[in-house]
């Protein structure tokens, strides 16, 4: 039973990883090898999928297949950076807060974290982007400003526990410098928890990046990006469904591949903790 669960977890991880690498390889090779440019406007407008255009063409006659794959690194890259920054900032701040002895700082920063977390995620990001101006850079800044607080909350709780563990006490009695203890002993253990959350957060962020572009707050045209492509083609969906459905499928594909990796890892961890 438990062995079977481990096998299933492994299977999920392999599935997710191969889905993801397939997409990344496509994102690398398709724009290089294709005879059409991602922003190349042709006279073949709204052509249905064919051998010439695998995913058809959009309103301006651009090849949807090429555009979907040229967006891979834009979407995944923005989401990756949009997770990485809050992950690192949140983990460090949360850890410091967890091991801090100053009650006043703990109270003030702690309630600030709760305050930030109180705002509905997507709404807060939309508002921040509104003030920062539309664009990929603003989206990443907005995501970081909002999301660090979620990581900080997880890290704080974890750091309180880790700080009382025997090996941290031991390191302290050995007279190691506090910064060394922090970065060698505490943060690695705290971040195992925040990194696990980052994986499921990645899915939310991929969708959020695309949703912002869909709402007209994302990348500037003509740069190919899934959310923006879906938005541009949503008006002609009855005439050319392919121009919005394929970017949507690509977005789901990316999300599902990460979801499978996350589910597989969870399954393995759950099994590990049961033993």
């Amino acid at each position, binding site marked *: 039973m438990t062995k079977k669960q481990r096998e*299933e977890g492994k299977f999920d991880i392999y599935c997710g990883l191969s889905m993801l690498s397939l997409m990344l390889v496509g994102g690398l090779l398709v724009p290089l090898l294709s005879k059409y440019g991602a922003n190349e406007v042709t006279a073949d407008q709204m052509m249905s999928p064919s051998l010439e255009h695998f995913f058809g063409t959009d309103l301006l006659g651009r090849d949807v297949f090429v555009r979907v794959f040229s967006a891979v690194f834009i979407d995944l890259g923005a989401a990756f950076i949009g997770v990485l920054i809050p992950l690192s900032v949140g983990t460090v701040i949360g850890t410091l807060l967890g091991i801090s002895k100053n009650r006043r700082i703990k109270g003030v920063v702690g309630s600030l974290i709760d305050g*930030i977390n*109180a705002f509905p995620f997507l*709404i807060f990001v939309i*508002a921040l982007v509104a003030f920062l101006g539309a664009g990929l850079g603003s989206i990443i800044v907005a995501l970081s400003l909002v999301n660090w607080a979620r990581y900080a909350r997880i890290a704080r709780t974890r750091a309180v526990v880790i700080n009382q563990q025997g090996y941290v006490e031991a390191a302290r009695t050995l007279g190691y410098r506090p910064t060394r203890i922090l970065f060698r002993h505490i943060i690695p253990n705290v971040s195992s928890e925040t990194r696990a959350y980052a994986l499921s957060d990645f899915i939310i962020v991929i969708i959020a990046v695309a949703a912002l572009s*869909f709402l007209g707050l994302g990348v500037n045209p003509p740069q190919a990006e899934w959310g923006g492509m879906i938005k541009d083609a949503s008006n002609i*969906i009855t005439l050319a469904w392919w121009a919005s459905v394929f970017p949507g499928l690509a977005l*789901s594909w990316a*999300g599902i591949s990460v979801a499978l990796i996350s589910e597989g890892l969870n399954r393995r961890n759950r099994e590990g903790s049961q033993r």
Partner: protein
Amino acid sequence: MISRNLSDESLGEEISSEQQAPNKNRGELRRTFQGRILRSCIVSFWVMFIAFSLLRISPGDPIRLALGTDATEEAVKVLREKFGLDKPFLVQFYDYFTGALSGNIGVSFFSQRQVNEVISTHLPVTAMIIILSMGAAIFISIPIALSVALSSRSSSKRVFGVSTSISLAIPGFFLALLGLLYFGTVLNWVPAAGYEGEFPKNLKYLWLPALVNCFSLVPILTRVLHSSLMDTLDEEFVETGVIRGVSKIKFYWSYLLRPSLAPTVVLMSYMVGVMIGGTVVMETIFSLPGIGRELIQAVSTRDYAVVQGIILVFGLIVVFVSFVGDLLGYLLDRRVTLS
């Protein structure tokens, strides 16, 4: 040796200590309740501060941005004074804070509408979508979670785990678009545009956005409900129910669902924030006159006063709902402690 005598004193002692228990519980309840209210107030204060700061700390001058590059210095100055942006930061915050407490959260940059008026006209649609999607999510989740929890086949748990995590990865706005294409264009079940505000009539416009919106909640809800059902099934009182021979419906309700409900209710209250986010997207796609669409419009016209006001209201709603959720979870099941 174990005492054979059942002394009346010791029995009396046990019972009299019992009689104090409810009072102790009531005191404890009041204390945790007070603590939770205090925390909600502090968090609300931060919510106000953050909403306030947005307008003041944004790079570039929001007034100039709003009016566009060809605005005269004079016009900028007038508007700046009108919104008190020329005063010191803390004074501005004091004005904003006291204004907000009396229900005044600003005036639109362009139209002369009060922001709270904008919100109160558009909130019902948003609230309706959220309530409908949460209701639908509960309706869908309970049978799924129950049947998976009671199933003895390991394959059903496997299918459940994979399908919930996959469905979380499908973006709502994409699903909405597909739904609109199929139900709107192909089947003609959804009106292409327009809206009627009266209750039974508006369901015609709202059912699809609510249904799509609930799909982001169902996977999470079923997971939490499933895991607390599994915990409940391990409890000894479930066996008590079997032995008492209560009816099937009663067994499912008071021996399985009721004791498992508290974590789910608490989760639902936390998920209101996610639901609000989803609703903004749905309102835009289905062109429904809710706050979300108002927000997107305000963002595109750079009406920052409206953006700020909407943010504030949503933030406060979430704080309030999670407070109610925690309390409700506690009342439903006293084994749960308030966080």
